């Protein structure tokens, strides 16, 4: 007991995490092993209805691990349209997410500055934002496909439209909330509007803006899976759906894990950036 309590909180939390993982995987593994074993004897009815055919079941974690090893040892192979490595699929998804996201940032941050600095623009644009914001990004998909006529660009558009709102709103909020004192410092030092924006307002609002950017990247990564299931072709979302059609649940579970890992990495990158611009008053 003393040996455990002597460890740091961090070490104890780590041990507990490992324990929870081991127990969860153990239960998963055992429950599948027990349900797989039938008594072998089939009734005539079962034979007639095809009950003897092998059933697709949820794979045990051991199989997922084998699959993961197999996939991760060669992540970038490309053997035709329906057979690409997990790395290639994730790469397509990341490319779409980042293009849509950066496009959104390029518009949302300057527009957010404008809205944040001008009470007139804030009031004028607010109703549009309030109506457009709650629309599920996937609802735009049919319209995007019809107007853009290109599934690839439509997926990027969907990412764009879903990631623009948190960035826009947070930028406007952050810029509007910059303390008057700091703006006065810029004024008494005769800074022009551009210098004021870059030297005072941007650093002052940066923590709020980055919070919006972090929320946006999270939403974009959530939406890309669904968008790719619709547009098909490439990407991790398409891969999950394709493996479901193949009834390869091992691959499906493996992909789900990978989606989680990439999402975590994206979030961690933004958490890091947030720390870099944070300041205490």
């Amino acid at each position: 007991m003393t040996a455990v309590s002597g460890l740091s909180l961090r070490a104890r939390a780590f041990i507990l995490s490992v324990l929870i993982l081991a127990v969860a995987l153990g239960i998963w593994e055992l429950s599948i092993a027990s349900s797989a074993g039938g008594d072998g004897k089939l009734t005539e009815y079962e034979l007639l209805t095809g009950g003897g055919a092998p059933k697709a079941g949820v794979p045990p974690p051991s199989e997922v691990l084998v699959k993961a090893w197999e996939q991760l040892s060669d992540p970038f192979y490309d053997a035709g349209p329906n057979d690409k490595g997990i790395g290639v699929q994730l790469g397509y998804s990341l490319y779409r997410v980042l293009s849509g996201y950066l496009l959104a940032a390029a518009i949302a941050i300057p527009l957010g500055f404008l809205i944040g600095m001008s009470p007139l623009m804030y009031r004028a644009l607010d109703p549009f934002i309030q109506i457009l914001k709650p629309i599920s990004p996937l609802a735009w998909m049919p319209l995007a496909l019809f107007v853009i006529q290109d599934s690839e660009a439509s997926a990027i558009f969907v990412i764009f439209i879903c990631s623009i709102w948190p960035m826009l709103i947070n930028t406007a909020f952050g810029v509007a909330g910059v303390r008057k004192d700091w703006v006065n410092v810029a004024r008494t030092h005769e800074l022009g509007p551009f210098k004021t924006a870059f030297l005072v307002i941007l650093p002052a609002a940066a923590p709020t803006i980055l919070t919006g950017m972090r929320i946006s990247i999270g939403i974009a990564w959530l939406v890309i899976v669904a968008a790719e299931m619709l547009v098909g072709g490439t990407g991790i979302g398409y891969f999950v759906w394709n493996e479901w059609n193949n009834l390869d649940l091992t691959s499906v579970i493996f992909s789900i894990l990978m989606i989680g890992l990439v999402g975590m990495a994206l979030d961690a990158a933004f958490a890091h950036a947030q720390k870099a611009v944070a300041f205490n008053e």
Partner: protein
Amino acid sequence: MNTPFLSIEGLAKRFPSPDGPEPLTVFENVNFGIERGEFVCIIGHSGCGKSTIMNVLAGLDEATDGVVIMNQREVKGPSLDRGVVFQNYSLLPWLSALKNVTFAVAARHKDWSKEQVRAHSYKYLEMVGLADGAEHRKPSQLSGGMRQRVSIARAFAIQPELLLLDEPFGALDALTRGTIQDELLKIWRGTEQTVFMITHDVDEAIYLADRILLMTNGPYARVAESVEVGIPRPRARDEIVEHPHYYKVRNHLVHFLARRSKEMAGREHATASGRPETVRFDEPDDERPAAPTLYAVNE
């Protein structure tokens, strides 16, 4: 010279009243002048518009009526010729102390090299005693006194013609306040800048200022009197209380704040010229200042 370096003429600030056609007048008919190199304090109760006058001088606010003329030019908008030390320091919290000063110096001297800006900033940080490693800390890692020092260094480093201080020591403890007051005086003497300062502290005003402006209570506040301190410089904190003028000036100020600022409030008491009445204490007629007399009470 007939016209002073800084001249405030007929300044007034009115706000549209929410419940009537008559606007709410914070102050009106404010007239005074400040000579170059003078250190002037202004005292008055909260709400009399001291800070508004200062913001008008800084160019951050606009008066409803009247003009401010500095160096024969009307003051319009903020300018690097007028440095401001704000009550809450107003340092940029994402920049280090040094960067806060270089920010100002670079704004003033756009043609200077990075090294020049840095050296100049260091010089002023040294003057306020902040060049021993503390200059690389962010404002949040500095004490209140150190923040105010940075703020003063920033204002002096741009070498403005007029320095505006809005209750700069209000949030500091008495010891720190004393030290920074001394530093302020030291820098001021070295640079011969003109200083206009708001304070609530009567002793601080007497210690620092050449002249103290007294404002009546608002609404319709105005600068009623201009008290000349008349204590020679350099002043030592422990010696000025011995000066025959000290308690006369102090009693006058306290009396004004406690009673006359209220009695003189309102527009009907304003003098025709609108100029503040000059109060000067002549040479002492007795050696010692009038000490408060104590009475033994026998029941």
